[in-house]
């Protein structure tokens, strides 16, 4: 049995597939590919799958980490599996791993934030971001352009896109999700200046 860590992207309208629906989606596609899934023991056996930090619906992702336990993982498994994925989902890389559980490795999330309308008020985008991200201390890195920003936030399981939108709304910069667009580019470790991929 192999514990397989893999990265996948979730693009286009598939970004609206809720996080909680991903385990059955991944399990069904893996079964279609002929993979034999390791089932958990106990009262209600189900395929053993671990996901990275939850993403709200409507946030596309370029490289989400996840793990799945497979009985018959071999050389061409990833390609076979990819052929059976639903539209919008792409499996990028995979490797058999050991060691600490996935959730402990997901230290930061990297996001691109785009504002649909020109940014309001006198403050610069950078000033605004700094203002809303002061408390708690989770901002690891930030680069801004006129109407977009690249942000790296710590503790991705607690502070993600939902937190960002809430903070922007509280500060009066946006009314809600319809005014901005967030993309998660990566989830991984943090080495002080860059995000390290998990696969």
């Amino acid at each position: 049995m192999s514990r397989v860590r893999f990265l996948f992207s979730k693009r286009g309208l598939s970004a609206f597939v809720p996080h909680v629906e991903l385990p059955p989606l991944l399990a069904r596609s893996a079964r279609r590919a002929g993979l034999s899934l390791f089932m958990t023991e106990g009262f209600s056996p189900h395929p053993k799958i671990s996901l990275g930090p939850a993403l709200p619906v409507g946030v596309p992702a370029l490289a989400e980490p996840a793990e799945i336990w497979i009985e018959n993982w071999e050389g061409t498994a990833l390609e076979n599996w990819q052929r059976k994925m639903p539209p919008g989902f792409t499996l990028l890389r995979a490797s058999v791993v050991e060691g600490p559980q996935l959730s402990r490795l997901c230290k930061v999330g990297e996001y691109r934030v785009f504002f649909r309308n020109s940014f309001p008020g006198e403050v610069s985008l950078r000033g605004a971001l700094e203002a809303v991200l002061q408390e708690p201390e989770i901002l690891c890195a930030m680069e801004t352009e006129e109407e977009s920003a690249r942000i790296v936030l710590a503790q991705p399981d607690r502070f993600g896109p939902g937190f960002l939108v809430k903070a922007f709304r509280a500060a009066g910069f946006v009314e809600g999700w319809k005014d901005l667009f967030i993309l998660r580019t990566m989830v991984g470790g943090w080495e002080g200046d860059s995000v390290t991929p998990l696969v």
Partner: protein
Amino acid sequence: MERPFEMDHPLWPILATVKQPSRYIGQEWGSKYGQDSGTRSKTRVCLAFPDVYEVGMSFFGFQILYALGNAQEGTVLERAYCPWVDMEASLRASGLPLASIESQTPLNRFDAVGFTLQYELTATNILTMLDLGGIPLRSEDRGPGDPLVMAGGPGALAPEPLAPFFDFFCLGDGEELFPRVLRVISETRNLPREQRLYCLGEIPGIYVPQLASCGFSGNGVRIRSKQALPVRKQFVRDLDSMFVPSSLLVPNTGIIHDRIPVEVFRGCTRGCRFCQAGMIYRPLRERSPEKVVEIARALLEETGWEEIGLVSLSSCDYTGLCPVLEALSGQLGEKGIKLSLPSLRMDAFSVELAAQLETVRKGGLTFAPEAGSQRLRNVINKGIDEENIRMTLESMSEHGWDRVKLYFMVGLPTETEADLQGIVEISKEAFRILRKRHRRAEVSVSVNGFIPKPHTPFQWEAQLPFEETEARCKWLKRQVGNPKISLNYHDPRQGFIEAVLARGDRRLANVVERAWRKGCRFDGWTETFRFETWMEAFDSEGLDPAFYANRQRGMEEEFPWDHIDAGVSKSFLWRERENAFQERTTPDCRAGNCQGCGFGPQDCTRLKEETGH
């Protein structure tokens, strides 16, 4: 930073704000994207389900038609579901049309749009979908550029209340009708609309309401048509050689029936007298166990679904059940695949089966005694007795289940207080039996008001006034008096509107349209149902809903569905009605003699065996 392509999707800002946006995105495994090059060389049909996605995706009929239509050369099938009220408001506010899931094509740009009429209370949703899709609501207002709008499903067998909204109705099994319909739609593309309707009306099983006129006299309706009447329901004779989808659409989000449906038989001969499905899907046709196993294995491989449901109107009655379970269960168990039966009969055999299938104890079991006394169960021909009920409960309790859900109807013909008292007794007895072995025993009782339906032995009967149904339900609730027995009932006012539409005539179309214009949507959903608005609509049209729902009809009355031949004869239905009032049961013809329901030996396997023809 490069702008992500998603930002330019016109629906994105709307999807980011509506409830459950995944309802609107498609993206399922098995969905057909990029089939249409935009050249108009292909015939494009949109299957339209008049309820939300998770209900529509659970409807096996559209899985079949989607695969069947897309397998025809030169035809492209796509899908649309009814947007929930928040989505409808957002689409209207943004000036966006209702479009297909696959290619985002507005409904009015298809060659044809096909609805299914599974439930009377989806009527206003059909108008929402037509209107948002840019299609004139009424057949008479549609022009050469508009799609042909068709409907199938059980509602098509009593089509008059919705007749003005449809160009034609398909009566019977889609496997039999759909390929012919698609061919004619495609071959007549360049003909005038009226001529196309004539051509469609030539297909057996197609009813074109525009060719028909209704004469109202007294209480009855006489329908005359340029088409030959009655129009006869078409059905597949042999399920083993019938079209079967080689794959299915696999949803990315939880749906109501989240499993592979494998049909084991079509039709039902149990003969419950209130049950429309039990009458209109006759004759009984079984699929061979070998074929069931073959289909199950193939679909499992193709879809990756974690559960298979052996579906039919009463799967415990399937004669091939044992060989199918034997062939499948071991193999599926190894892979962690579950096998389920959607409805359980009330007998020890069914409980044994359920115990065999349920490797994991979860939830409880559900049964439908339907009526509280033996007398009333005989009236409705529900072939179970008190001993069956007791044994079933004992058996499930022994097997470890501590929860049971029981379905009953209130307001059945001839019902008395003693029958209602019987519901209370059965519920208490159920609790007592389960409690003997289980400290956490729970009984949940679900009560529905009886709704007389067309093509059933009770099609002549009056529905109780909804106030009386409600009073009886409240009485039941008071009588139960045990917090471990919960009793819930559906809003009898919804059942009233359903009853009106079920046996209505063409005059009701104005009421449906008016109710919709006044804001009625999703009338089958408690949170959106607006009874007062419906009553205002009846009032404005000068029609009395009680005429349709609460009136006892005479034997000779001509019904607004008499021009539709569902296969079961009116004389058989009347005979069954007479048996009901004499509390005489009619045996299932599988176990006894032919009851002469209306099918000949060429159509009915059972009769063929009996007569040797």
